[in-house]
């Protein structure tokens, strides 16, 4: 080994340290928060397909989705025809459903927040909880390094003692290079895996790199799944809070 190569190596190492330090300085909390806001931006509009497969049936729903910050979102079913117009509004901690067949809006009672949303493997609580993830959990890096040839962080999220959350623990893997999440695993209070959220189809939509596809698999029923795919996604659209009103929830398009 020559002196020159040694110097180069040292320099490289120093350079690497210098370059990586800003990212190192990022707390786990900031990274998670950033990942959490990925698909939303300040406001967004998207076109999604949700394919649900269960032991007993499978179905596919096309939906349009709007969001404003973390507090508001509105989802409206476009097909199949039988369910066209069915809509869900999230405003703060409340979830409302609109049922076109009976032309009524119904607030989802607290007891059903853990119930399935639109028959999928997402819960009503999933629509609400994201706004609180950074407030309700403590974060730590449980792994940092290479997994299957990709540099990643793995985070462990433990609920704060007083936090009103349903999970006992959450684990999340994020790619270092582009801050893209690869999977999130949800555990119950006994430490058993309940479900896994897997991300894929990373592409640029609305000017941002996002995972266009999300797959939920419940741990107790490995043959069941829900796949959510974004076909269109625009950020920073012009909507305000009045858009996320019960009146607009009822409005047929």
């Amino acid at each position, binding site marked *: 080994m020559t002196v020159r190569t040694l110097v180069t190596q040292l320099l490289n190492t120093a350079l690497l340290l210098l370059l990586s330090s800003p990212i190192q300085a990022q707390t786990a909390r900031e990274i998670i928060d950033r990942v959490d806001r990925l698909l939303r931006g300040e406001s967004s509009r998207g076109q999604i397909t949700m394919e649900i497969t269960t032991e*007993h*049936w499978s*179905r596919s729903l096309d939906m349009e989705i709007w969001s404003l910050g973390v507090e508001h979102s509105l989802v409206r079913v476009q097909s199949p025809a*039988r*369910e066209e117009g069915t809509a869900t509004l999230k405003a703060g901690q409340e979830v409302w459903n609109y*049922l076109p067949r009976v032309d009524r809006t*119904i607030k989802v*009672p607290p007891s059903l927040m853990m119930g399935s949303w639109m*028959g999928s493997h997402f819960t009503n609580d999933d629509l609400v909880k994201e706004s609180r993830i950074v407030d309700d959990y403590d974060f730590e890096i449980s792994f940092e390094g290479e997994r299957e040839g990709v540099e990643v962080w793995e985070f462990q999220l433990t609920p704060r003692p007083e936090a009103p959350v349903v999970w006992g623990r959450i684990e999340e893997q994020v790619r270092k290079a582009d801050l893209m999440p690869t999977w999130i695993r949800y555990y119950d209070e006994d430490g058993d895996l309940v479900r896994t959220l897997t991300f894929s189809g990373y592409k640029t939509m609305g000017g941002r790199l996002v995972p266009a596809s999300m797959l939920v698999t419940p741990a107790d029923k490995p043959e069941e799944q829900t796949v959510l795919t974004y076909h269109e996604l625009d950020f920073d659209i012009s909507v305000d809070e009045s858009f996320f009103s019960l009146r607009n929830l009822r409005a047929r398009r």
Partner: protein
Amino acid sequence: MAHDRLWWRVAWRNLWRNRLRTLITASGLAFGYLGAVLMVGVSDGMLVELIENGTRLMLGEVQVHSEDYLPERNMHRTIGGYEGTDLEIFLNQINSQEDVTAAAPRAYGGGLLSSGEETQAALLMGIDPDREPHVTTLLSRVVHGRPLVTGANEILLGSEMVEQLGTALGDEIVVVAPSSDGSMGNDLFTLVGTFDTGIPAIDQNYGLLALSDLQFLMAMDPARIHEVAITVGNAQDSPRIAETLREFLSDTELPVQVSSWTDLRPELAEMVSLMNAFHFIVVIIIFGMAAFGVANTMLIGTFERRREFAVVRALGTAPIGIGQTVVYEGIVLGMISLVAGSLITWPILVWLHNSPIDLTQVSSGFSVGGAQWRPVLRVEYSIESPIVAGLGLFLTSILAAVYPAWKATRVLPADALADR
């Protein structure tokens, strides 16, 4: 044998030598018998009422499900699988069984009820308004409005649910339920009646719909049901009847599970076995007390007759003969007491059975395992308890005579005659 008859006669005569003492002892035993039979009768009455209230209200005494339905109660696990089964044929098969009094089909769903203002999660139960009253008293608990009519999108709610929803008779209720095809079934139903069962879990959570209306709401074929509730002649006999029905239905090749109320409400069945064990203890305590009384009198009786026994011994009677006569005295006393006991017990039993003691003033009752008990001391007839109590009485009088008899055999003629 002739010898034997002689000893019986001696025993009989001896008993009547001190008439008052014998009568007092015999009435002690007779009242013990009355007490035992009555105690058992009252607690049997409580049990029968608990079982009836536990089964008649909603459960039925026997239930049939698809074999994989319990305990998850997954809505897809209908009897006969996805295709279901021809209801008429299936119910007729069940009804053809000798012990089956009536059978009613049901379907269940979980869902949301909304009055507009308020929304509550509810357990939806689809019933056949014509068949259900033959199996359970559920529809008779409708306190306001009227029962259901099939095909008119009508709903019955518990009194507490009505309060929580802030709704009233005639109002429209939005019912939302996950359907068998994965979609969200939703429709408007009219509240036509409210029921009050006294059991909070039912009054707070249940919504009753006509079976076919619920099937339509949940996109289920009319051939698909979750449950058949069955009522049988004798509730205590349900496990055996369930077994017979299980064997019978195994011929139809539908993978079904037949459960009796003892499987479905184990805590109630547990209560019944506990009470039965308790009966046994009551009988033992009552006759245990009686035994000492009888033994005491008989012991005094034998001491009084020491000289007599000594004379009989001196005349050449074997000690065993003397012991025999004392035991025979006990047996005869037992028989007299049993006759007297039965004579006083039966009229009182008949009277209490027909006009039970009402304790509503002092107690408001309680509920066990979803079964309510009214504070009315209803007395049940039973064949078993008079026999058990009779046997107890008999054994008591014999056992109580054994020690005095043994003492009698130990009398030494010379000593006794010499007053030593």
